[in-house]
């Protein structure tokens, strides 16, 4: 089984929002970033994977197991880090361990206490006394203590300082180093993903915009910069998104159109550039 996560044709409707036909797969041993602006369906997708929401259509397989019919078996392999604390505030860290560990047959007590030491979390501390970064690390420590093969993180970096974000990325890249673990990571802070992610799945207002290698994704686009008078009508038609200001403009183009713009400044695009400019397009179309 090469794919740790397979999502096919996943759909879910809410009043005013539809997640439509989302398909992607995450191979064993890699990190995938799930990106998109707020409200684009990232958390909905994750909740559907975890069967916390009921899907309308489609199929989800976790390590080859259906996420609904084989839910218990499938979830034994999954670790989840939510964007907010998922433990009772009043619990101590040790009590949180007791509460979580009963659900996992292969819970490794020693590993958990090693991880607490490594993350500098005191077992006697109350959960509410932990910083946001510490709470996140506590959730990670739980997932690692039953050797979850697939780690799913929902907006783990929001609200974290740069030091904790860097630490998280380090933990994740160590986690996949042996090639036996995978990570699905939703975020709108794409700078974090720019380097560490292997795959990108970009959901834009409920629709799948791209899923594949990060490097391919970034290479699909370029940023072009120039003076306002250099933008002819013909060239405007090739722009995916544009920001113009009194002394010039900055726009996103498809790499294949690069030659049309070669008299201007053409630079590689970042993931952020792509997300920002492709969302302008969304606004224009509506």
């Amino acid at each position, binding site marked *: 089984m090469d794919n740790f996560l397979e999502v096919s044709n996943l759909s879910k409707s809410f009043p005013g929002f539809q997640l439509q036909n989302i398909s992607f797969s995450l191979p064993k041993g*890699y990190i995938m970033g799930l990106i998109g602006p707020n409200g684009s369906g990232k958390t909905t997708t994750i909740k559907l994977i975890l069967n916390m929401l009921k899907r309308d259509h489609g199929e989800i397989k976790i390590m080859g197991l259906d996420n609904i019919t084989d839910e218990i078996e499938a979830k034994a392999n999954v670790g989840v880090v939510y964007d907010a604390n998922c433990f009772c505030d009043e619990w101590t860290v040790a009590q949180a361990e007791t509460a979580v560990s009963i659900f996992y047959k292969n819970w490794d007590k020693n590993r958990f206490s090693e991880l607490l030491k490594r993350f500098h979390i005191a077992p006697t501390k109350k959960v509410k006394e932990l910083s946001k970064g510490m709470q996140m690390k506590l959730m990670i420590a739980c997932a690692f203590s039953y050797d979850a093969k697939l780690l799913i993180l929902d907006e783990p970096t929001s609200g974290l300082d740069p030091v904790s974000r860097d630490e998280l990325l380090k933990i994740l*890249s160590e986690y996949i180093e042996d090639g036996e673990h995978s990570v699905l990571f939703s975020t709108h802070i794409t700078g974090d993903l720019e380097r560490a992610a292997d795959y990108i799945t970009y959901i834009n207002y409920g629709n799948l915009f791209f899923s594949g290698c990060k*490097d391919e994704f970034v290479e699909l686009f370029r940023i072009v910069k120039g003076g306002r008078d250099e933008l002819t009508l013909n060239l405007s038609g090739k722009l995916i998104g544009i920001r113009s200001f009194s002394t010039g403009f900055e726009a996103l183009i498809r790499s294949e159109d690069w030659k049309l713009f070669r008299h201007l400044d053409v630079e590689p695009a970042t993931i952020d550039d792509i997300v920002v400019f492709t969302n302008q397009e969304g606004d224009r179309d509506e």
Partner: protein
Amino acid sequence: MKLIISNVSGVPIYEQIKQQVKSAILSGVLQEEEALPSLRTLAKDLKISVLTVTRAYTELEEEGFVKNVQGRGCFVMGRGSELIREQLICKVESGLSEAIDAAQMADLSPQELHHLLDILWEGKKNG
């Protein structure tokens, strides 16, 4: 071997890895049969994607510098340095022919061009 990644050079990361591995082979820092850093460890250490390193290693293999042995790692091929040397000579040749084109446009004699080359060579040598 030293391997560092620049975020401002504009050169794609896989290309930076390739260039640095190649120059390590050429300068003898990496010897024949020596192993490159493990793919996943390098990705972790440099905080880059495993696929980026995979691409660099695969292209190095395609160009004949290294050999991937399934499950064991990536090893420096013999003759690697000759290959790079050939590539470098190609680069010198194309640079020189560009210089010749420009010299002809400027009506420089071959002697004058030689002289110019000598001056520049000395200048570089003395830093």
